[in-house]
């Protein structure tokens, strides 16, 4: 991927005081609101457990539910395509768009298509893809990358957004109005005018989906702006690209997530727009509907007994908003469309751990556990992080061979109390000559920011021997 490792990418973000202030304000506001919205429900714990169980049951028999979904979608007039990886999914979508004869498409925010870099692929095929989610539009116009699951442009402030609109809207379609200010109302109106033109012109829409209901072949998108509904209803052809883990067996199961998702993500009791579509209908909505079911590493994750719980994720972003590491490092440092704690466990499973960035992600956490506490489907993120660290350490990539040797040496000493005691005694006896700052990897980084403690005159075990035994 060529991305720098997490600590390197985080280094610059930590020093960017504007970014840190933006992130701190946004994440603290939403986390406090979320806590209040969740506290309103007296059955939250039961909902969380139900969501976990539904997802686990679905994942256990994923093949059955996907086949059921395919049958239902087909019966309702849709066409199902299976894509093993990003390249296959991109080929399928590009061919479907080309078959319509169109050279532009509108898109409702979809993480799956970002994951496979569909926009870049379509562009190479001469097809322009327009993002219509407001935050996605900001990211696309700014030639930027998303940094949050729910608020992809969380790292941008209003002034930056105004400048992006003024500079870039014109080359993509309707330009920004003269004298555009940075008030939210004016920015929203500029986006509305720009996008309305695209909605009315587009013949092809591309979407993701939050859920797919197997029993009826129904797809579901939840959103706040209504732009997604425009994409889903106005074009003649609708192509939905969805990860295979998004299936739920029944409408009854869906009910649980329609309660937990909005409260966890936007701290709302209910999201403003819930759009559902089932195949095609005469004289209403798209005349052709294609569902591209995306694997792209998901069955590999499914095969991992500990790691598979990451596939329960409903993309609410509650874990990002409580994560102290995300708050300081920002979303870009994670080098993936999936940032934050969930990204740290999902990305290395989808992409493997061979690149520098993917091998560093399992360590991008202090294991504080705040993410697990808020997760509406009870993904034990710290457990998966440690599990993935084992995988990375075993693979022995950059630095881990040295680390393993050091850990082995430490464990050897720690398994011999007499050797340990001798070492402690030596360290205590020489404490007056210990430097406050140390050389060497690890020790140097530690003492860049902190003083090492002054060692005691004697370790505890010597005190005990002299005073109590």
């Amino acid at each position: 991927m060529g991305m720098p490792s997490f600590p390197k990418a985080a280094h610059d973000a930590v020093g960017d005081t504007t970014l840190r202030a933006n992130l701190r304000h946004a994440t603290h506001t939403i986390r406090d609101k979320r806590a209040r919205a969740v506290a309103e429900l007296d059955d939250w714990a039961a909902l969380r457990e139900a969501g976990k169980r539904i997802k686990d049951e679905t994942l256990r028999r994923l093949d059955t539910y996907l086949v059921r979904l395919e049958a239902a979608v087909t019966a309702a007039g849709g066409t199902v395509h299976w894509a093993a990886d990003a390249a296959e999914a991109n080929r399928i979508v590009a061919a479907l768009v080309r078959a319509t004869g169109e050279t532009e498409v509108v898109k409702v925010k979809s993480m799956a298509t970002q994951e496979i870099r569909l926009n870049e692929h379509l562009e190479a095929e001469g097809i322009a893809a327009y993002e219509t989610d407001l935050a996605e539009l900001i990211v696309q116009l700014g030639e930027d990358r998303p940094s949050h699951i729910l608020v992809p442009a969380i790292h941008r402030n209003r002034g930056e957004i105004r400048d992006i609109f003024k500079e870039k809207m014109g080359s993509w379609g309707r330009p920004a109005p003269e004298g555009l200010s940075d008030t939210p109302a004016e920015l929203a109106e500029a986006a509305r005018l720009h996008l309305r033109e695209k909605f009315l012109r587009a013949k092809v829409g591309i979407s993701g989906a939050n859920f797919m209901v197997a029993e009826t072949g129904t797809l579901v998108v939840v959103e706040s702006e209504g732009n997604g509904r425009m994409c889903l209803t106005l074009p003649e052809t609708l192509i939905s690209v969805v990860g295979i883990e998004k299936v739920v067996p029944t409408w009854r199961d869906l009910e649980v997530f329609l309660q937990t998702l909005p409260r966890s993500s936007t701290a709302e009791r209910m999201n403003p727009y819930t759009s559902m579509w089932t195949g095609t209908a005469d004289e209403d909505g798209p005349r052709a509907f294609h569902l591209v079911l995306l694997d792209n590493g998901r069955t590999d994750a499914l095969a991992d007994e500990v790691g598979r719980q990451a596939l329960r994720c409903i993309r609410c972003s509650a874990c990002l908003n409580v994560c102290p590491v995300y708050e300081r490092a920002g979303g870009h440092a994670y080098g993936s469309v999936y940032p934050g704690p969930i990204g740290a466990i999902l990305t290395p499973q989808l992409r493997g751990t061979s690149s520098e960035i993917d091998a560093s992600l399992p360590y991008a956490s202090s294991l504080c556990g705040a993410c697990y506490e808020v997760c509406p489907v009870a993904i034990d993120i710290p457990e998966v992080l440690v599990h993935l660290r084992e995988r990375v350490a075993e693979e022995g990539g950059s630095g881990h061979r040295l680390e393993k040797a050091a850990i082995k040496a430490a464990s050897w000493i720690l398994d011999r109390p007499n050797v340990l005691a001798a070492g402690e005694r030596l360290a205590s006896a020489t404490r007056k000559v210990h430097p406050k700052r140390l050389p060497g990897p690890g020790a140097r980084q530690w003492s860049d920011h902190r003083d090492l403690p002054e060692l005691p005159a004697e370790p505890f075990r010597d005190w005990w021997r002299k005073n109590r035994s």
Partner: protein
Amino acid sequence: MRVALFVTCVNDAVFPATGVATVRLLERLGVEVDFPAAQTCCGQPQFNTGYREETGPLVRRTVRAFEGYEYVVVPSGSCAAMVRHHYPSFGTEAAALGPRVYELTEFLVDVLGVTDVGAYFPHKVTYHPSCHGLRMLGLGERPRRLLEAVKGLELVELPGAEECCGFGGTFAVKNPDVSAAMGADKITNALSTGAEVLCGADNSCLLHLGGMLRRREDPLRALHLAEILASTEEEPWR
């Protein structure tokens, strides 16, 4: 009552005063304390860094060291959480230790049934609940109730108390910038309370925060909860 003290490797080598304070406190409350010398480290640093195989011998050593004790008391929420939550994955013998291990405040409140331990500490104190004690053990109000009962002590609320301090074991070394940024924010919050002492129940967090405080030379020091609870009018602690 007789208990085994699990002092932890960090306390043994770097913060023996916490172990001494724990012994004095427990003895003052009529508890007989043993220190099984075969103990070293619970294996958490190795385990959390991804070295499960290297953790095994330390788990077995710890389990053997505390064989036969009904109560094992440890002045660290983090090490208690390691034993209780992760030892079961190392076999049934290791799993059996978990229910017998008590973090210090759990032992005082739940087993001895005391919140007023007869301590005297005339200082303004703010309390940082370490993540593992807070979320993995669910210590809840136990540490605060113990501190509130200390004579002369003024307990002030720490803003953002439940946020991680940024230590995280090897996280502090592997992600030094993020770790330091988290620690700096924790210290800013602690200083805003006007407290003289930043108290915690885990010396690993205090190693990190105390190290930053020493670098900054602020009028705030980090101190383990056990040392505050061990302090009396007759024998004031430092």
